[in-house]
């Protein structure tokens, strides 16, 4: 094979001058089908959504009025918007912080030589491949008021049952917890790969210099893990801000709007409240928030990478 390639190389080299004169064609027809699909199903609707955000369309009637920036005014003065944004940020940031801290700790542990650590890794990673909707239901069995596993424990201990999922103080945190439980395996695997790429020489040199484990972690492990931290942060922020399925499964956004995220709120506005124009406005706002936060995270951590 390689011999063939080498021989061909010679042939190519001989013919090279002649071929240089011709400008390379773009072969645009090869990506046209993909472009059409992406344009029709993402780009056009997205641009159309920006347009709809300036209307009072209800989602089904043939006609609607242009209302200028009224929907935007409404959005910024609507207290629900800020509640929903607060929740969305909590889901995005809360799960990101938890997944990264716990994921890193798991990776550090599994980077040791422990017997049967493959089983631990499998169990931690398994939820990643399960639908977030099913994951939500699985945890519902744990937190449910009637016959939930948590209340079984409380009853056993002689305590009162709690309705955790209907409590607006707790249920947002339960959603963060479930999302963390489900995707902590991804962070763990990325950190494990990062840890394994760090040369052992650094640690040996540090040990000779008498550095403590904590110092080694701070001065060797953490800086060299920065690329993995960037990936994890950006990935988790985007995932957390878009959270939808888990919320539907656990609380449906309730009670009231208490645990609603921007995604579920948009869904409600469109399908349950026939307020499509306003749903589009919320959609534009959500895209802006995700864009700003993920770019900010990317730039911030990339800069750290360079310093390291």
């Amino acid at each position, binding site marked *: 094979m390689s011999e063939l*390639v080498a021989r*061909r*190389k010679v*042939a190519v080299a001989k013919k090279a001058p002649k071929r240089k004169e011709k400008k390379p*064609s*773009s*072969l*645009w027809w*090869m*990506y046209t089908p*993909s472009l059409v*699909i992406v344009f*029709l*199903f*993402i*780009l*056009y*609707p997205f641009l*159309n*959504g920006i347009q*709809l955000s300036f209307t009072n369309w209800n989602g089904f009637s043939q006609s609607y009025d242009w209302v200028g920036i009224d929907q935007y005014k409404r959005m910024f003065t609507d207290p629900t918007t800020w509640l929903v944004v607060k929740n969305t940020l909590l889901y995005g940031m809360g799960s990101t912080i938890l997944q990264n801290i716990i994921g890193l700790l798991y990776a550090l*542990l*599994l980077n*040791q*030589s*422990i*017997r049967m*650590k493959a*089983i*631990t890794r*499998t169990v*931690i*990673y*398994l939820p*990643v491949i*399960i*639908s977030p*909707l*099913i994951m939500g*239901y*699985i945890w519902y*069995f*744990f937190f449910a008021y009637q*016959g*939930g*596993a948590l209340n*079984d424990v409380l009853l056993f201990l002689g305590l009162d049952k709690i309705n955790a999922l209907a409590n607006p103080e707790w249920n947002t945190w339960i959603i963060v917890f479930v999302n963390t439980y489900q995707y902590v395996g*991804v962070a763990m695997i990325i950190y494990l790969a990062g840890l394994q790429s760090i040369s052992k020489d650094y640690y040996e040199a540090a040990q000779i210099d008498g550095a403590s484990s904590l110092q080694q972690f701070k001065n060797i492990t953490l800086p060299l893990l920065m690329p993995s931290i960037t990936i994890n942060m*950006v*990935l988790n922020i985007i995932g957390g801000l878009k959270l939808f*399925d888990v919320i*539907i499964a656990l609380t449906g956004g309730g009670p009231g709007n208490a645990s609603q995220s921007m*995604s579920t709120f*948009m869904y409600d506005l*469109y399908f349950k409240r026939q307020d*499509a124009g306003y*749903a589009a406005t919320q*959609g534009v706002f*959500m895209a802006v928030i*995700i864009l700003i936060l993920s770019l900010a995270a990317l730039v911030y951590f990339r800069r750290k990478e360079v310093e390291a």
Partner: protein
Amino acid sequence: MTYTDKKKKRLFAGLAIFITLVHIIPFYILITTALKAKGDFSSKWVFPKQISFENFSEAWKLTNLGNSFINSAIITLFSAVLLIVLGSMAAYPLARRQTKLNKFFYFLFIAIMIIPPLTALVPLYNLVVDFGMMNTYEVAIFNNVAAFMPLTIFLYAGFIRSTIPKELEEAAKIDGASTLGIFFRIVFPLLKPITASILIISCVYIWNDYQFAIFFLQDSAMHTLTVSLANFFGANQNKLNLVAAAALMSMLPMTILFLFLQKYFIKGLSAGSVKG
């Protein structure tokens, strides 16, 4: 090995076992719930004294789960095939021919990755109704293909640039092969590793998709697994045993695949995560 080293090792092993057990809890509860007979109101933590498979057969019948399995499988399979064929074909010129036009479209594909699909939902719904595509396989397939196309192109283009020697294609060209011929006979077979990753990423996410399916597949004959399950849950919120059985059955195919092909799953899914 010193004494403290041994102690440390034991501590780590203990910790690993503890973490494993904590992570298993929800699955354990799912299984005990699903296996308990209707009248069995014992604690969820206790394994049922008498195992009952009633819940499974009843849930299977009530949810029409068989039909949903087929729908999910069809949508996942066709989406994955389209993604791989069209995506690899699109990535090839974008990776190889650095013309102005191609640079622009590559940038466009990558920029689209940032748009959250849900924000395009309201107008997309309109469009789908206008096309008469509501409740069809096509809409689910094209939606999923569109959602994963930018990532697919990004991964293929990166792989082609970094690992496929240009000389190979040039040699074939001299032999008079057509562009498409060169691509499918020479380049595509070399893309196997990244194709495997893309296959796993797209299959896992499309199989588990709920957001698109709930909007565009509202007719019960077209329901996918997640939609059937969500409806079933909504109607039987108090019959936890039945819902647990249905949930267990719907997560089984992917779980079995994962346990057998774990290495490929983890590698594939991590390949997708470099998109940040």
